[in-house]
């Protein structure tokens, strides 16, 4: 019963979620992913900025022998502009504090997580990893001075 209530709460928070682009939305996403993580793992204690930062910079060995991290494209400072390592195109900052269009819409965020996690890790990331990830990005507020 408790589980059902939780699922309903999560669904409700997703459906009432408005596509307003700001930091509050990203914070809301952290709580949504945290609720899902808590549901599958009762010992989960909340989103960790440290784990999110580690995950962001962690180099993952790919099938082709290359090593990749989120930071490979988004740079070690997510408040900075990134650069696509395949196309060379610049990528707008990932941090929702600097770029208000980031983490604004739940469906887009889910689609992007699934796509990017599949590209690098080979499968979708866990709700816990997603919560940590956004929690970390929210702490990156200052672009590197040029």
């Amino acid at each position: 019963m408790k589980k059902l209530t939780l699922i309903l709460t999560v669904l409700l928070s997703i459906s009432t979620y408005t596509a307003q682009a700001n930091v509050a939305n990203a914070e809301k996403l952290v709580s949504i992913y945290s609720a899902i993580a808590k549901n599958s793992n009762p010992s989960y204690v909340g989103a960790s900025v440290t784990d999110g930062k580690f995950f962001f910079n962690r180099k993952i060995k790919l099938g082709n022998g290359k090593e990749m991290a989120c930071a490979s494209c988004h740079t070690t400072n997510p408040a900075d502009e990134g650069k696509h390592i395949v196309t060379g195109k610049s990528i707008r900052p990932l941090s929702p504090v600097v770029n208000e269009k980031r983490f604004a819409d739940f469906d887009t965020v889910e689609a992007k997580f699934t796509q990017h996690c599949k590209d690098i890790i080979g499968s979708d990331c866990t709700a816990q990893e997603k919560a940590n990830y956004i929690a970390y990005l929210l702490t990156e507020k200052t672009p590197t001075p040029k």
Partner: protein
Amino acid sequence: MSTKYVWDPFVRVFHWSLVIAFSVAFYTHASEWNRLIHVRAGYIAGFLLLARIVWGLMKTGYASFKKFPLNPVWAVKYGDRLLHGHAKRYIGHNPAGALIIYAMLALGLIAVGSGWLVYNEGWLIDQPEFLQAVHHYSTWGWLILVAVHVLGVIAESILHKDNLILAMITGRKDLP
């Protein structure tokens, strides 16, 4: 029985090149690793569509737009006759096929154009979410049109005992 030459080499090469270009673009759409292949396949598809439009405007014969005018009323009438099993045989595109072809040309250009703008974020229209939505729906819409086109080709081939797929390879059709 006589054989008639219907589809010129340009039309045939265009058709199968577009099939390949779209298939490649579709297959590579999801992964960032394939982003360059996806973009190039899309650009090739765009150039093919533009070339076909130029060809349709300047060419005479079955490839010409004049030979298969855009007329939705005829298309609906033809579709109705097709369902009742007494549709007239056309050597070139029938009115229903023509409607789908114009829709594919238009939607194909929208798909490629929006993809071009998505890839070059910040150009002309700086609305990434809007452009991504346009690209998403126009390409899936295009896939639906392809399905209708293929079903139409199969239905027509069976109904008129006229192998349209083979005709798009050899360019020739047998006439009674």
